[in-house]
């Protein structure tokens, strides 16, 4: 199970190394994997110190995005009026460029964690809202009818049928949001930060320490992968029925 990605990664790294050596690429433009690995090791303390801040921004921002996103999704699904009123604003929220809005957050909240968390939440919540709404729509109307004939109240129908049916969709949305959240944290830090991996990229770029910049990118990628793995793990626990393979049972 680990073999294909491992094999592909080794192949990729070997090709990268060969390309840099054979074509004598300057290490300011494209460092070799060996040089990046060296930088990762040499700067491990610096990287570690700045990783925790960025991880906090990502996790807290994602959490906000999930809470706001699912709630908003449920409200939109529950009322046509709310849907029509809110949806255009949702789309607008995604069109405002982060470099324009992040400084405003910094003005409001200063240089602490909060503006970055807000930026992460802003870029992450939209896919969660959309997927929540779609997930809630995915319940079969016949099932809802069946529950009505069993005398179920609207609340019961929501909790017992609509929400569980929507969960796989919500998890999909959270996965997409996770990808955006890492980028969001970096952008948030670029606008006003004194620590963090995004901040590191800026300072290292100014020093043309390209191999160290790549090292930061590797750490960010690892965070992204780690997030994905965490979400999949949680999904496996929360939705044990979702991955069950079909088993033939004797009638």
């Amino acid at each position, binding site marked *: 199970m680990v073999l294909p990605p491992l094999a592909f990664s080794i192949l990729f790294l070997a090709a990268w190394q060969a390309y840099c050596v054979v074509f004598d690429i300057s290490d300011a433009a494209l460092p070799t994997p060996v040089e990046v690995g060296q930088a990762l090791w040499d700067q491990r303390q610096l990287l570690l110190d700045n990783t925790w801040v960025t991880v906090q921004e990502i996790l807290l921002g994602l959490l906000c995005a999930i809470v706001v996103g699912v709630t908003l999704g449920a409200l939109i699904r529950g009322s046509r009026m709310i849907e029509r009123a809110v949806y255009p604003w949702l789309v607008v929220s995604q069109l405002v460029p982060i470099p324009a809005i992040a400084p405003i957050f910094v003005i409001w909240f200063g240089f602490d964690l909060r503006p970055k968390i807000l930026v992460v939440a802003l870029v992450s919540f939209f896919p969660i809202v959309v997927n929540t709404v779609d997930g809630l729509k995915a319940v*079969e109307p*016949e*099932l809802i*009818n*069946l*529950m*009505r*004939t*069993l*005398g*179920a109240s609207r609340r*019961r129908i929501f909790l*017992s*049928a609509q929400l*569980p*049916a929507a*969960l796989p969709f919500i998890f999909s949305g959270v996965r997409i949001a996770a990808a955006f959240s890492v980028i969001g944290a970096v952008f948030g830090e670029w606008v006003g930060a004194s620590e963090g991996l995004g901040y590191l990229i800026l300072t290292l770029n100014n020093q043309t320490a390209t191999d160290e910049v790549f090292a930061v990118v590797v750490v960010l990628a690892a965070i992204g992968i780690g997030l994905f793995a965490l979400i999949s793990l949680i999904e496996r626990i929360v*939705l044990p*029925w*979702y991955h*069950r393979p*079909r*088993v*033939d*049972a*004797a*009638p």
Partner: protein
Amino acid sequence: MTGSPKLATEGLGKTFPGPDGSPESEVCALTGVDLVVGGGEFVSLVGPSGCGKSTLFNCVAGLARPSSGRILIDGREPERLLGLVGYMPQRDLLMPWRTVLDNCTLGLEMSGVRRREARARAREALPRFGLDGFEDRWPASLSGGMRQRAALLRTFLAGRDVMLLDEPFGALDALTRSGMQAWLLEVWESDRKTILFVTHDVEEAVLLSDRVYVMSGRPGRMDMCVEIDLPRPRALGTTTTPRFTELKARILAPLQTAALAQAGLPE
């Protein structure tokens, strides 16, 4: 039958508005349907597709409001039909996120019965429905026949006196279907619930029922009611007796005529 029938419809009609809302584009799904089901009776409805069987069920279950006529339960017109009648739709609609056991307890839960007690009652009934040992499985791992039995158990456990079964065996293959028919006969014999059963399979209707209503469609209406005087308890072997064949022919005749007419062929 003494006293009022368990379930009755009088002049039931249902019209759906057309796409442009004009009176001309209205679709009449049901018209003047009179139906009577006595307590403990097994009554079938047969008819071609589009004859309004599902609309009739939706009205009786309280999911649709009739345009005309009335529906009587125990001789009275209830204020709210929804929840009075047990309803098993064509598809089993088992929730994939619940185990078989928790799917069966759905009706009890919605009625306010506590989880533990509901599970206990379901567990008791599992062997009779051939689901013993499958209570903790996910529905996705069950065969079609088992899923229908689970759906039927859910309907039985919901505890309504009247049950509407909408082509429960329609999606099963012929062999499984025969087995399920024999099994349903046995299960019903012990409980004698009042059942209104929709099927397009005339043999199935004659085998299972006390009476068969024959419907024709567009707009849906009752054409005739045939009394099935075959002795009970019935067995699969009944299907080859001469009386069975006679009754089956009587019911099939108008249906076949209608089918030929619809296909544009001479009778």
